[in-house]
């Protein structure tokens, strides 16, 4: 796992953002938290991030806007999308906007760890 990655976590559930940040910081990463899309976009503009994890349903606009914004800045930054809805349309829209991966909430910590590790050290699995 790459040490000291800069990770942005976007979710309107403050308790969740807080917990994920603490978990990731404990793993040695630098974390930013945002509770809505505009906040997230500000952070994306200000920081050069290594990974973005965003919820799809945000209070101001869809998380897809966050995905689009990061894609307009960087082609390679991995973006993990989390959603409470398992609709294919939503998944497709997220992937079309440039999300690297979509997860169905609630995401278990073990899965999240693995996904983050994979996103930060992308390798083609044989």
């Amino acid at each position, binding site marked *: 796992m790459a040490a000291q990655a800069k990770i942005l976590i976007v979710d309107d559930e403050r308790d969740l953002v807080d917990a994920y940040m603490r978990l990731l910081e404990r793993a040695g990463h630098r974390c930013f938290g945002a509770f809505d899309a505009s906040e997230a976009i500000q952070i994306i503009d200000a920081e050069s991030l290594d990974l973005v994890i965003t919820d799809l349903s945000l209070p101001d606009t869809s998380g897809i806007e966050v995905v689009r914004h990061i894609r307009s800045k960087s082609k390679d930054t991995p973006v993990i999308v989390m959603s409470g809805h398992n*609709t294919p349309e939503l998944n497709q829209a997220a992937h079309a906007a440039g999300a690297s991966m979509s997860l169905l909430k609630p995401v*278990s910590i073990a899965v999240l760890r693995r996904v983050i590790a994979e996103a930060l050290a992308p390798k083609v699995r044989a």
Partner: protein
Amino acid sequence: MARNDLPKLTEHGALNHVSVVRSRPMRIALYYALGGLIWVAVSERVLSLMPAHSYDLNRLMFVGVNALLLYLVANRYMKTIRISVAAREEALVRARGYFESSVEGIISADSNGMIRQLNPRGQELFGYHEMELVGQPIEVLVPQRFRYRHEAHRSAFFTAPRSRMMGRGMEIAGRRKDGSEFPAEISLNVVHTHRGKLVIAFVTDITERRAMEREARRNETVDALAAVAAGIAHELNNPLAVMASRIELMLTSDQDLSVQTREDLLVLQKNIERASRISHNMLSLARQRPGVRQAVDMNVAVEDAILIVGADAKAGVLRYDTSLDLSLPPVMAEPTGVEQVLINFILNARDAGARVIRIETALAPSRAGYLQLTISDDGAGIESSVLPKLFQPFFTTKAKGTGLGLWLSQRIVQDHGGAITVESEKGKGTTFTILLPTMADTSSDLVQLPTADKRTAPPQIAAARSNQSGG
């Protein structure tokens, strides 16, 4: 329906030809009278034109012309008869063809309700030979409990007969020779013959249609329930995620947690994971269309699933034994769907008290273009009486099961064009076999989104299941 293709016998050409032939003698007499009248009117004049005529010649001419007239009229008459007989024969052959080859049972009965004829399909439906039924009252084919009512209906029908469906809106059943019954749809038609009215009944066995309707109704109910379940599950997701992450934080903070507190937290963690799994299942229930598909290496999927579930398995008690064919082509699949199926099967094996779960991947030996994944356990096994119900929604043998895991797994696998079969023996363990088309085989399907009706299971499932339920 086939009924519309069948011509009504009352409108049949055969009857028209009969009436044509019957009116012919009248016309013959008319032609003859007309010809004779003309001849009588003109004979004097014609004979007087002859250079020399005698009384004998006169008589000879009269007979000759009469004979000619008779010949002409009779000739036409015979020709018409020949044509109508041929037409009638053809009509009869055609009618017989409809009768013999109809996919519906056809029964004719006279106004006393006595059976006159029964076509081959009718014999097949009711299990009688035609000879056993001709002359018997039609009520023989009606279940005992309907017979009295049927007789009353029949009398009423004959006083004002018209073509109609029998017992619209009511359950109609036919009674076979062995006393068993089948749901039927019957249409009644009346034919007028010179020997009286004849009722012709078209009988369709609707057992299959009924079963399909039942299945459709059940699916509707399940879908409605699933929508509610998914709504609830969605609301639970965030609270569950918050709880899971906080517990993880506490567990990993590595500070001075007492042994008891640590154990309590682990129990909490395990139960939150369980709740999350239920929530995931509930959410997946409501999915209507398959999601994004990509190339999935089933071997990796197996390893991932073991990794995810493995966290639950107490070390040393449960062992995974894998034999993976690394040369397998990938499958075109929804990664989360496939993962969910594998996790469901592993959890089932674990819940059945398995000590060893053996997972094998290989190319399907019986079907080209498919891969085969088997998950065998040495757990409690499944009662053979329970096997047929295994994939029904809300069917479970677990005290805390939802009864949705296997149903959902089958739905997912079927969505991917695959099939699941099960083999089990009480006390010896269970083997589930999943067949999935590999990408080499499905590449042609990629352009068209898989919208095939997921309710109709590929036929091999039913066949395979019935093969194995005996074992």
